[in-house]
């Protein structure tokens, strides 16, 4: 059976440390956006820790929630792309073909989770840093949209490795960088089609919920709520 890659984030384990964010930057060659541009809101994060701070002092209900791309089953972004530069593949990963994107930013406005970012300028690195870019991932050009790919390049490498070693792809062969880095081990990744995978099991827990579930986008990122 086809894999259906999904992620489970246990908010009870999550410590809000943002290692996922940094790991994602390092893995995916995300552009460095300096202070002036950051103040305008041009920072790019494929996964971002979102704060929910409700109530009034001193009775506050606050939550921190890491938000990658949801890789929805019914994504709002794919439909609207006029050139088909973003699509969902058979394994459910919503990908972007950066070399086809015309930069109309329709997908960015259509995504209810605002996970997509745009390259307002040509991403540049000081020459001292260029060699340390991840060679498995493209460096985006200015004027295209980008977002979390579930570190799909890691899947390509893992598949290849498994094939070279003449074996099936094992559950731990492929995990995204954020999951790998997570110090409190709040993130799980795996095949949702496999009823016995860790993510499958967790996604059936009582604590499991999805973000903006009522929109019917059917995210493949599942959260486990805090508390008992």
């Amino acid at each position: 059976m086809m894999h259906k890659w999904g992620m489970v984030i246990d908010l009870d384990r999550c410590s809000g440390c943002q290692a996922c964010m940094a790991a994602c930057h390092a893995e995916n060659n995300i552009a460095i956006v300096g202070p002036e541009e950051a103040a305008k809101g041009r920072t790019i994060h494929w996964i971002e820790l979102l704060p929910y701070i409700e109530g009034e002092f001193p009775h506050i209900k606050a939550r921190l929630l890491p938000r990658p791309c949801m890789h929805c089953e019914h994504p709002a972004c794919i439909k609207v792309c006029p050139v088909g530069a973003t699509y969902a593949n058979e394994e459910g990963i919503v990908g972007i073909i950066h070399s086809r994107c015309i930069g109309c930013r329709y997908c960015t406005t259509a995504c209810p989770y605002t996970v997509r970012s745009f390259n307002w300028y040509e991403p540049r690195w000081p020459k001292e840093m260029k060699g340390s870019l991840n060679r498995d991932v493209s460096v985006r050009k200015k004027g295209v949209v980008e977002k979390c790919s579930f570190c799909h390049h890691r899947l390509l490498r893992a598949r290849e490795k498994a094939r070279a070693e003449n074996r099936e792809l094992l559950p731990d062969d492929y995990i995204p960088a954020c999951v790998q880095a997570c110090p409190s081990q709040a993130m799980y990744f795996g095949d949702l089609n496999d009823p016995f995978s860790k993510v499958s099991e967790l996604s059936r827990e009582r604590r499991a919920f999805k973000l903006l579930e009522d929109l019917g986008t059917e995210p493949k990122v599942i959260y486990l709520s805090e508390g008992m």
Partner: protein
Amino acid sequence: MDPKRMSLEEDAILLQPIQRTGKAFYVTLFSLLAVILWAAWAYMYQYRNGLGVTGLARPIFWGVYITNFVFFIGISHAGTLISAILRLAKAEWRRSITRSAEVITVLVLFFGVGNILMDLGRPDRMLNILQYPHFKSPLLWDVSSITVYLTASSIYLYLPLIPDIAILRDHGGKYQWLYRILALGWKGTEKQHHLLERGISIMAILVIPIAVSVHTVVSFVFAMTIQPMWHTAIFGPYFVAGAIFSGIAALIVAMNLIRKVYHLEDYLRPVHFNNLGVLLLVMTLLWFYFTFTEYLTTYYGGEPIHMTIFWNKFTGRFAPYFWGMFLFCFVIPLPILSFQKTRTPYGTLIASISVIIGMWLERYVIVVPTLTHPRLPNETVLYSPTWVEWSVFAGCVSFFILLYMTFTKLFPIVSIWEVQEGREKSMAEVQERIKTYLPGIGVE
């Protein structure tokens, strides 16, 4: 009716703009050119550096360019739709105004499309839309329907222009070669006339659904997403109504200018303005009705995510824009247009300028606030358009005026043959027609 036979004495003034060009024209021309060059430079600056030079950011991915896109497409409804409706309704007073309306349509469409192209992050890949079209995307529906609309309205502009071009061809003067080509050998025979009339009426019928579809589809760009205050069925009719609203306003402004500059007071009379004023009044009320419905629906439903945006428009950061829109779209035009005393050319001009400003604001208030408040927590980003965006906007407006001006210098802006036809033939026709539904008239 042989054009050679046509006496032009009466309507000579209509050819004057083509025959004579004053100093004022060149002054205007060069100042417009200056603005356009400046805007071109601004765009080049954006092209080289990226969209970072605009005020856009995450999550406000769309701003002035998209606002302009909707705005210009809206303005384009002035011409074709109004002229087509008036033609079909056989409103006699239309004869002197249809051309000036149709020209707006054709010219302004380019700027609507242009703004969307300028909004692209990768204009160099623009042709991907044709190479890899993805028809699920409302943007592609736009591309299709705007292309059809542009074609249809160009034809619709061109057909009634043929006899007038023939007049120009036969009258001597500059650009004979151009007129010769464009006149398509018009001789004014009965057959030709018949064909022309047929063509015009077919186009008039065709163009109405197309025009309606265009603006509906433009609204779909927003309504098809699931974003709060965009995802609503009212957007189709709301946008169409708004488009006609701003279109008529644009037409009134254009007519006022033509009237003043080319001294066409005899052709564009207060009654035209009065009639259009009434139409604008109707649209004002319709606009209010739609706006009211839309916001009431939102308010009554009271969904929190919608209400955030709602209150932001009513009392929050976007209140100046929202209430500005209300002021310009409703409060100012309504009283002016309500009374015949103030439905003068001058009165309607004021109301129309107000409406145009208001309708631009309306589009802004539709595009930006929703994007400012996405469903999930996001950083507070304030969108303020930069000089690049304003320059490009100014450039678009200037370019449009320039093209319009140039048109009036090449072709008569009031349809000569139609006016004459009206004078000669319609009189009889009208009498005939009236006879069919009123007793006691025309019985000589």
